[in-house]
């Protein structure tokens, strides 16, 4: 219930202030490369971007850029433009934002952050690991830009909580990687630079490992040194610069700061009472939602999106198989419901979670499947309450602020009542 002390302003971590510089530098670099005539490849999340670097192709990320656009609160006219071009209202809003820009006609186009995506792309690389929409979206881009498109196919993971794919599944992805290498050799008319590929894999391994260390550090620490809103900004470096040195340096520094804050028990908010888990992609146009709960003593300490879409180690002793395993193992969207539950149950324990907020995401139904089943399982088996909010990660048109705030406020009241009832014995 109401009237708690307000949280302190500003970033919890000094290192977080570097994220905006990294973002700006990335965009300057990629636009400069395009001007200089270097090949640019549009890559989707979880695509094997290290292979692009091995062929001196610079990656740009339409999905990530759509999130940047949504954060700048200019997504709506682009979404509407895509819909006016007969793309379905039900299509992912990342795709609609990008396609709205690609097919924009007439006046009134919003000023695109960082000058927009460099166009045209020279090649397209995608994968069906997160979803099929990406493949269809990339096919539209291929038709628009008349450039080659490469697809990494991968099976859905049905593993255990240890999260290991089967040998057959790994074999399949290794074959796919080798096929992509042959396709890129054809495209660039150059021989594959395996040494460079392994170097990029090593950088990805370091950055991915550091990212997971960071997530563990802030999740295990009581009080947590940093909340979700800040970490959603900090993930950019990993999303757009995987395979380079930038995220390695950035996350090493962040890890050291977190280690210090954890040791000193310096919390993100003055009086941490309730520790929350956020499930699904955040509302990029309303990241404030993640920090608003802090007024009531609640803080998001863990997000499945930040952990099970991004980061992870690669076994470099067997690079192809190690990479295939990493690609298959760490994507929440590519797991069946039982595995998701098992992983969440483990994380709830490890990160001392009091409650879960599910974001039923209109744009990402594959991520949002089974929430009411998961909700029931968490309550019945672990006694962990949860709430489901309905929204979209990048399209603000269907978002109801009053409804969502009410659900979150009531959920914190529920946690408070449970806590009070427990303390009364």
């Amino acid at each position, binding site marked *: *219930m109401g009237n708690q002390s307000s949280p302190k302003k500003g970033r919890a971590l000094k290192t977080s202030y570097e994220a905006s510089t990294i973002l700006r530098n990335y965009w300057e670099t990629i636009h400069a490369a395009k001007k200089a005539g270097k090949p640019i490849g549009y890559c989707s999340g979880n695509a094997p971007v290290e292979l692009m670097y091995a062929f001196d192709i610079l990656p740009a990320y339409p999905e990530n850029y759509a999130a940047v656009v949504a954060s700048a609160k200019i997504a709506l006219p682009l979404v509407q433009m895509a819909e006016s071009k007969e793309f379905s209202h039900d299509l992912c809003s990342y795709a609609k934002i990008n396609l709205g820009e690609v097919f924009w006609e007439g006046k009134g186009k919003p000023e695109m952050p960082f000058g927009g995506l460099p166009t045209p792309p020279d090649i397209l690389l995608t994968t069906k690991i997160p979803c099929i929409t990406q493949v269809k979206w990339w096919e539209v881009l291929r038709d628009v830009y008349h450039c080659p498109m490469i697809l990494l196919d991968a099976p859905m993971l049905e593993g255990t909580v240890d999260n290991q794919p089967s040998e057959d599944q790994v074999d399949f992805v290794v074959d796919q990687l080798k096929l992509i290498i042959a396709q890129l050799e054809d495209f660039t008319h150059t021989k594959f630079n395996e040494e460079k590929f392994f170097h990029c894999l090593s950088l990805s391994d370091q950055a991915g490992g550091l990212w997971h260390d960071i997530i563990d550090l802030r999740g295990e620490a009581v009080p947590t040194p940093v909340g979700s809103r800040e970490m959603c900004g900090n993930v950019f470096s990993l999303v757009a610069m995987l395979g380079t040195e930038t995220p390695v340096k950035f996350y090493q520094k962040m890890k050291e700061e977190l280690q210090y804050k954890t040791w000193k028990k310096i919390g993100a908010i003055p009086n941490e009472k309730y520790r929350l888990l956020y499930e699904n992609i955040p509302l990029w146009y309303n990241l404030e939602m993640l920090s608003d709960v802090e007024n009531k003593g609640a803080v998001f300490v863990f997000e499945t999106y930040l952990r099970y879409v991004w980061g992870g180690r690669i076994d470099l002793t067997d690079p192809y198989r190690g990479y295939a395993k990493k690609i298959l193992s760490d994507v929440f969207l590519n797991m069946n419901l039982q595995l998701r539950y098992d992983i969440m149950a483990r994380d709830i324990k490890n990160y001392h979670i009091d409650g879960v907020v599910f974001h039923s995401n209109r744009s990402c139904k594959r991520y949002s499947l089974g929430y009411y089943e998961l909700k029931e399982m968490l309550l019945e088996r672990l006694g962990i309450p949860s709430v489901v909010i309905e929204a979209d990660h990048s399209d603000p048109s269907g978002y109801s602020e009053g409804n969502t705030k009410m659900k979150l406020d009531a959920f914190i*009241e529920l946690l408070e009542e449970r806590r009070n009832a427990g303390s009364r014995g």
Partner: protein
Amino acid sequence: MLVAGVDAGSNAAKIVLMEEDQILSHGVLKTGANSLGAVKDLLQHILEQQHKKMEDISDIVSTGYGRNYIPFATFQATEIFCHAKGVFRTMPQVRTIIDIGGQDSKVIYLDNNGRVADFVMNDKCAAGTGHFIESLAMALSVPLEEMGPLSVRAEQEITISSTCTVFAESEVVSYVAQGFPKSDIISGVHHALAGRVVSMARRREIRREICLTGGVAKNIGVVRWIEKELGGSMRIPEEPQLTGAIGAAMIALERAREQ
């Protein structure tokens, strides 16, 4: 000890004045664009009726969509908790509350001690809310308060299949054009609302007894359809619209006693 509970809802402001455990007075006022003004006027009116002044009130708690915009409230709580408290006060045997307000509908599941164990709410659209009935009453040119009594005279079942308020309006207009009696159409509207709310309630186990709160509980047509869908009767408070404000006043009383 005098306290007040203010429920600043999307359609109406509701205020309850409590003296210790007894409800001293209450009032409901339709809110226009200026909901804060409506709340102020209503509180002033209630206080004058009781020959009391603002300074006599020990604590004021607000709830409802406008809960954060009542400057004289010392504390805010959501309707979910206020409804639970308001219902449990007089009906401690209730385990499931269905609240249908102007802008949303909620199902609140209580444990045996009257605490909120879980809740579900409608998503962002108007289907399943009081606004659904208001819009269709306008489309049919029937005063809102006559919707309930008219619908119980229905002689045949009409299905309104669209959950979208705008599409449902087209369906209603089409039935009117086909010459169906208004009572039959209104009954169909109530059935559609009841179906939507009950399917939401079934996301969790519905434990009895069940209580219906919110302004829509005054509509006998909706009540009957929900009872039919649930296969049993519901408890309805004497003033179903006031439940949230009563709960808010109870929280105010607890707070005032603690001070």
